[in-house]
């Protein structure tokens, strides 16, 4: 089995309507799989479903299987019950199984590191607590491991940083610390939900390089959830595009950006400055004003009139 995580026929719904409507996705071992889509497309909920962290009002069905590489000798409490064919089923898994998976086998980083880190605990404490819980390390061993982690994510002056609090770091360094916390127990899968969206572009570049290195150094697979196709193009190996709870296209990175098969993917690229399918601002305005996105139905008939007496002719009709 070469996939670290296999999602099949995943459905997530609230009582009244579906959020994710039967998607398949395979996260290759040692790769970065980008999950793209607009707000409300279900990409974040898909990531949360992996860890059984969906809001109480939502239910998941289908299957999410995590490759079981417990051969390293680490046996988890629930793997005997949930494991089949070398993988662990996460949909509908017991609290015991999920407890052993969360933070240990599958970890997550979020958009805003200042909410995912505890403001009143030192960085050292946040890095060692789950090391001691999951791996049963002693105080000194956990501390030296924490220091090594901070060095790995390149937080300057690692030893002194352990005694500091999250607010004493910049946004980019806080995100690096959040990544260090996530990596502490050597998870096989990292779920990253918009990890660079809140960061400045110069800081984002550094975090993207770090994510790529972590994967290339071996052992880690990343599911990268982001709406930013520029970020996807920089680090993802494969990209899945979601829309309204469905996968519209899934392809290797280069193919998706150079030969998209789906019209929706192409429309995303058309609106993206710098992509090979980019449309001119005039064309984009024309499409917007003609109301191709459909303003409640009745705008269709007078739309051509609206465009013609309006000074936005792009010349490429």
């Amino acid at each position, binding site marked *: 089995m070469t996939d670290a995580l296999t999602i099949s026929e995943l459905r997530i719904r609230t009582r009244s309507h579906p959020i994710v409507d039967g998607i398949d996705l395979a996260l290759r071992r040692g790769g970065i799989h980008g999950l793209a889509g607009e707000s409300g497309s279900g990409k974040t909920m898909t990531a949360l479903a992996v860890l059984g962290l969906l809001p109480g009002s939502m239910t998941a069905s289908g299957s999410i299987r995590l490759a079981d590489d417990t051969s390293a000798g680490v046996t988890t409490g629930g793997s005997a019950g949930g494991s089949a064919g070398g993988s662990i089923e996460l949909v509908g898994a017991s609290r015991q199984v999920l407890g052993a998976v969360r933070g240990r086998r599958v970890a997550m980083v979020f958009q805003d590191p200042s909410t995912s880190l505890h403001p009143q605990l030192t960085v050292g404490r946040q890095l060692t607590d789950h090391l001691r819980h999951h791996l049963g390390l002693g105080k000194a061993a956990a501390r030296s491991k924490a220091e090594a982690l901070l060095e790995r994510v390149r937080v300057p002056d690692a030893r002194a940083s352990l005694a500091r609090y999250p607010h004493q770091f910049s946004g980019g360094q806080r995100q690096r610390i959040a990544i260090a916390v996530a990596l502490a127990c050597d998870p096989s899968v990292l779920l990253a939900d918009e990890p660079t969206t809140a960061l400045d*572009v110069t800081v984002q*570049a*550094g975090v*993207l390089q770090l994510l790529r290195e972590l994967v290339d150094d071996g052992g880690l697979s990343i599911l990268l959830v982001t709406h930013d196709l520029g970020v*996807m193009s920089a680090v993802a190996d494969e990209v899945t595009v979601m829309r309204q709870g469905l996968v519209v296209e899934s392809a290797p990175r*280069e193919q998706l950006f150079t030969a998209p098969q789906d019209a929706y993917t192409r429309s995303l690229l058309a609106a*993206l400055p710098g992509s090979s399918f980019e449309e001119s*601002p005039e064309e984009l305005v024309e499409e917007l004003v003609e109301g191709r996105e459909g303003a409640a139905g009745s705008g269709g008939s007078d739309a051509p009139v609206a465009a013609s007496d309006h*000074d936005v002719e792009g010349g490429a009709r």
Partner: protein
Amino acid sequence: MSAGTVLEAEGIVVEYGRRPPLRAVDGVGFRVAAGEVVALVGESGCGKSSLARAVVGIEKRRAGDVRLNGADVPTLGLRRRSPVMTGMQMVFQDPNSSLNPRRRIGEQIGDGVRAALARGDEGSDPADWLRRVGLDPAMVTRFPHEFSGGQKQRIAIARALAARPRMLVADEPISALDASTQTSVAALMRSLSVEAGAGMLFISHDLSVVRRIADRVLVMYRGRVVESGDTETVWQNPLHPYTRALLAAIPLPDGLGRLPLAPAEADRAAWLDDLPEALERTSA
């Protein structure tokens, strides 16, 4: 004041708090001509929003002058503007907080129309503005919650333009929108403001969009403008080390998997340097 200049800002300083005050904007001056789009870019906390708010008179200026068509722009906070000052309109980041959720959108666009009339300018029909931003004119009787985020922002743009502004100040108007509509809405703003002959100050951290719609660009770092000039000139040949780092860090959506360049910590010291030759650059 040269011909065609709509907005002129000189030596603007904005400070917050006291003992010691935090200088968010440290002596910034610029001009915007009629029909021109000037973009203001920089990282979060560099003072772009403070500068925008100081320019329209929401934020108190510690020093500096702002003139709209030669008339001094007073610091009024959120108080009512004189008819002359409604010639400068603002579009904010979040249309959910700039539109009144309890009033019909036609009435809200009507506020802009009334501002134009009070100034002795031409009136217009709110429905017509909806059509120009690509929405169904029949929707004037609807409320903001019936629209998507991108549509709401277009309503806010319609309201601002209905006031027949000479100057439009837009503070991150596209960053709350979905990626697929960001460039379109920015391009629409350019098209409508150029058509109206208004100047526009477009604040954004999205450099690729800025490149598509701005005639000139101001690059801000730590409260100062470190580089400015014609957009293409700055892009083709950035002189200031901060501008260079900023442009190199933009990930390109070309599918080639190239990682953007991350600046080394040690390089950041040079970003504070003043480089006179990087200012006011023209293609000539």
